[in-house]
Each structure stands twice: as structure tokens, then as C-alpha cells.
């Protein structure tokens, strides 16, 4: 592994159920000021960690760093207890990290089957692949129902399920979700969050970035409020939701009569 990222690359200390860990990460784009200024987070197996914070706080940047799309300036990334700092996206994918990109990202002209199978492109073992297909069909019923349908004909919420299923094809340990509610109406958003919970039940760790902060925190285990490239506060999601000050600052005021 590359050591050029600085001296802070210390191995994780506590339990091995930490799947993804970012330690004191500094990162940014080009010559512009740093976006992340010493950001740390850890995601455990079967746990949903939700990043919330105002626009420009660096939420999406965290995901880009974690999936290898953006190099860190300093700090380190750990995947399954191994140093993954500076690893390429393809490499991380093979090591168990799947990134569901922002916006609609199914291949609209291809069938659900073709979409899901492309998710398993890096899986060479045919029988493992077919096992996996059965597994994701079980987790996401729409995938089974619409197996031969052109993905572009599905509703936005159904397309999200196809994307999630595709991400599960590599048998990931951790899935990064970038704004999964984007473009979905409130009802579909609720359905989508149910599907995210299914990912957790499937035994994967989820790192979630959401605009829809309150809804996202309600179904998350850990909340992590990001501001100015640092962790402002982190803790069990329910506690964050209960904190009136946080509510005012970051969650758009007190819960409306919803």
C-alpha cells in the first residue's frame, strides 16, 4: 500500500466489525480550499450511518473519498481492517465496497436482468453469480417481478431498487448511497427507505448521504452531522433527532405535523 499519504495511517484499534473507516481525512478539489478538514467516520457491519449537514458541507465528498474517486490529501481509508488509502475504485469494488451514484443510474435501455448482471460483471464464478441473483431477487421483489422489463419503463422507486440490487451483486460489505431519494416523490421516498433497511438486513453496512435528513435519520442507526468539512456532532440517530438545537440548525426546524 502507498505510504505517501502521510504519517496518520494507524490501523484500526477496536472491534473488527468496523467495515469502513475514514481517519482524519483531508480532501478537496483542485487548488480550491479543502472540503474535508480532518473528517473521521466508521461504519459497522449491519449498521446504517447517515451523513447530514448543509449543502457544501462535504457529504458527497466523503463518499467520493471512500470509493476511491477522489484521493485524500492526508488521512487514511480502511476497508475491512486493511488500508485502502489511494486504492482505485475498481480495486475497492473487488474488496467489498459498492457505490450507488447520485441520480438515476440504471441503464434505461437495458432490461432489469441485464442491469443486475452488469452489477456482477467483476464476479467471475458463474454459480456464485446465479446464487447472488436469487439472493437479490429475494431482497428486492420488484427485481424478480420485472426481471425482463426494460429498466427505463420502471418507476423511479423501482429503478432505485434495481440499482440497490445491482450494487449487491458483488456481495459488498459496505454500500455507499448518494442521495437515494433524489427525484422521488414522498411516497416513493418512504418506500426507498424501506429498501435501504433491507440492505441492512442483508448484512451490509450502509453509508448514506441524504437531503431528506429527518426521514433518513429516523431509519439510521448512527447520525453524523457534518459542517465545514468536520464532524459537528455524531451519535445514535434517535438522540440527534431528539436534540432540539440540532433540529433547528440542521434538520429544518422541529418536526412538522407530518
Amino acid at each position, binding site marked *: 500500500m502507498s505510504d505517501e499519504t502521510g504519517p496518520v495511517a494507524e490501523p484500526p484499534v477496536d472491534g473488527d466489525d468496523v467495515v469502513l473507516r475514514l481517519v482524519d481525512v483531508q480532501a478537496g478539489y483542485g487548488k480550491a480550499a479543502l472540503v474535508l478538514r480532518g473528517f473521521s467516520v466508521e461504519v459497522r457491519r449491519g449498521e446504517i450511518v447517515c451523513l447530514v449537514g448543509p449543502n457544501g458541507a462535504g457529504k458527497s465528498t466523503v463518499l467520493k473519498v471512500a470509493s476511491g474517486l477522489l484521493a485524500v490529501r492526508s488521512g487514511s481509508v480502511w476497508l475491512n481492517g486493511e488500508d485502502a488509502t489511494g486504492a482505485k475504485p475498481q480495486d475497492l469494488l473487488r474488496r467489498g465496497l459498492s457505490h450507488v451514484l447520485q441520480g438515476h443510474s440504471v441503464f434505461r435501455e437495458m432490461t432489469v436482468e441485464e442491469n443486475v448482471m452488469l452489477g456482477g*460483471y467483476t464476479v467471475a464464478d458463474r454459480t456464485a453469480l446465479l446464487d447472488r441473483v436469487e439472493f437479490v431477487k*429475494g431482497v428486492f421483489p*420488484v427485481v424478480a417481478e420485472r426481471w425482463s*422489463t426494460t429498466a427505463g419503463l420502471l418507476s423511479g422507486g423501482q429503478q432505485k431498487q434495481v440499482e440497490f440490487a445491482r450494487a449487491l451483486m458483488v456481495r459488498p460489505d459496505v454500500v455507499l448511497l448518494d442521495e437515494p431519494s433524489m427525484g422521488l416523490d414522498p411516497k416513493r421516498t418512504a418506500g426507498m427507505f424501506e429498501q435501504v433497511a433491507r440492505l441492512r438486513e442483508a448484512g451490509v453496512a450502509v453509508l448514506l448521504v441524504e437531503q431528506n435528513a429527518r426521514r433518513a435519520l429516523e431509519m439510521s442507526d448512527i447520525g453524523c452531522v457534518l459542517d465545514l468539512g468536520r464532524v459537528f456532532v455524531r451519535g445514535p440517530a434517535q438522540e440527534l433527532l431528539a436534540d432540539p438545537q440540532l433540529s433547528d440548525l440542521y434538520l429544518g426546524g422541529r418536526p412538522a405535523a407530518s
Partner: protein
Amino acid sequence: MRNASDTSTPLRRGSSAVQALRGAGSGRLGPFAAILVVVAVLATWPLLAGNPYMLSAGVIVLNFAVFATAWNLMGGLTGYVSLGHIAFFGLGSYGTGLLVIHSEINAFVAVMAAAVVVGLLSLLVGWAALRVRGASFVIVTIAIVLVMLLVFQSWRSVTGGSTGLVVPRPFPDLLRPEHHRVFFYIFLGLLLLVLVSYLVVDRSRFGQALKAIREDEDKAQSLGIPTAMLKLAAFGISCFLTAIAGGVYALWFGDLDPIFQFDVVLSAQIALMALLGGVRYLFGPLVGAIVVGSALEYFLLNFGETQFHLVATGLLLVAVVLFAPDGVLALAAQLIRRLGPSATSIREESAAEVRAQQDARALAERVEEPGADATTDREDRR
């Protein structure tokens, strides 16, 4: 395996004819049978053609069809529109011609040898050209043709320049009509080869990845698909098949001139054929070649060597863009769908959707258990 997909039929009903057109029927062997039928039908042309001219026109159209189908393996599957494929056609024909002239090897062995060399060469060219996308790629491919044209015109000592290069015929004792007939069947065999190649690629994992590249290359890359390598492989296969067509053309026509062997306009016409027929369809380029090829011959025949056939090509292109932007076969598929049972109204669809979701929920309750597997057998991922 539980066949849950059977409940999702509303969108599929009435589309089997469409799938047959696409060459992607649900049966594994269906499209292969379709290829055999099409080739068998085409094989009757020499019996119907009244005179040697019609026979030679058939050879030209088949040559276009082979070329356009080979082009489609790259242009259709990856969406990378090359206007420079004629460069590899020309290299294939000159390579074959020079081998036949300067060595003792069998003419058809020469075709294959030339095609292999051109295929390897295309990997080098593709390695550079495929670094750019969209319009830039189109321009780079045009530049390749112009470079080849200059080289082959200037390098007179080897290529004969614009005086031409006479390629000895492989069957010297055949009379002209017989010569056309033999080459008609050779090109037909070649058409069989490229159609099967396209179909095999189209249905493979490789083909799926190419189509993913066509839709969104970055997205494909994010799934771990080695896009650069696969694009290059598709380009190489496409150019190899194109070079074979060029080589056989050299043996048939017997006279090579750089201005025709590296003709950018013809290169564009080949792309037009594929687009006109429908790049998403196995037989699209073939249909396009028959339409454009016969139109070109018709205008040449009736209006002589005027530029009128070029005007006609332009008008044809306009007609395609206006009335069949996805090709003639897409238009046909649309008509079939319209005539078939209309099962895809939004209302019916959403009723089916609701039912499907209810079923799905029931199904989901039953299959909750497999979720536990993920934690226990995660070793076998590596």
C-alpha cells in the same frame, strides 16, 4: 428456480415479433435460425438476376452488407460512430493485393493474413483514437482515412499510386458472369460469418458491457467494467471483419485505386446504411445496405456518373432522420407493436403494478431467510 418473471408479462406481450427483428428472441437458437433463413433467401439472387450486371450489383450490395454489419459491431454496440472504417477496408484490400502479387500463397490465405495484420494494426490505432469520445472520435477516424489516402497515393513504388494496382484473379479461367456468381456466394458466406459474430458478441457478457458503455461509459466504469479494454476489443474485431471484406473485394474487383479504397464518402455511406436499417438490430445494417446499395446503383444507372446519387443519398439521410430516427427496422417494430394487442396502456400497467407489488410483498415475507447467508459465507467473494 421460482419463475417470478412470468408475472411481468404485460410489457412483453406482443413483442415477440419485435424481438425476432432485433435478433434477440427468447429462444437461444431462434436468431441463428433467422440468420440461416435470411442467407438462404439471399442465395436465390443469382437465379433471379437476369444479367451479369444485376449479379454484380448483388455482389456490391452484399459487400456493403458485410461491411456495414462489421461496422455495427463497433458503432451499434458501443455507440462509437466511426467514419473511418474504410481505412481498414482499404488496408485489407491492398494487403491482400500486395500479398497475392508478391508471394505464392493462396489468394484466400492472403485475405486472412492481411486481415490479421490489419486487425492488429487497428488495435494500435484504436488505442489512440478511443481515448476521445463523441464528436472527437468521429473526427479522429476521418483523419485516419485521409492519412491512408495520402500515403497510398504517394507511395507509388509499392501501391501503384493513382494508376491503380491490378490484383490477379483467384479463378483466372472463369468467365465474367461465373466470376460474379462465385464471389456472390463467397460474400454471402462472409455475411453469414459477420452476422453470427455480431450475434455471439451481442449475447455475450462482453456485448452486455459494450451496451452499458453505449448508454453511459462512466456508469459502466463504476461497476468495475474495464471499458477501455472492451472498446478496443470491439474495435479490433470490427476492423478485422472489415478487412476481410476489403480483401475479398480486392480479389473480386481486381483493380485498386486509393481514391476508391480510402473514400471518406463511402465510409460515411456505410455508417448511413447501418443507421438507416437500425443499429440496434442484427439485420439493420443488411437492410440498410440493400436499400442504400440498390438506390446508389439505380441512380448511377439512370443518371450516369452525375452527382445525383450523392443528392439522393442526402435526401435519404434526411428522410431517415425525419421518419425513422432509429432505423427502418425500429419503425417496422413500432408498427408491429401498434397492430398487436395493446397491453401497455398506463392504466392497465399500474393495475398490474399494484398486483405485482402485493404479490411481491407476500413473496418477500417468504424469502427473508436467505438474508442470513450474506454474513456467513462472505469468504467466497474473493
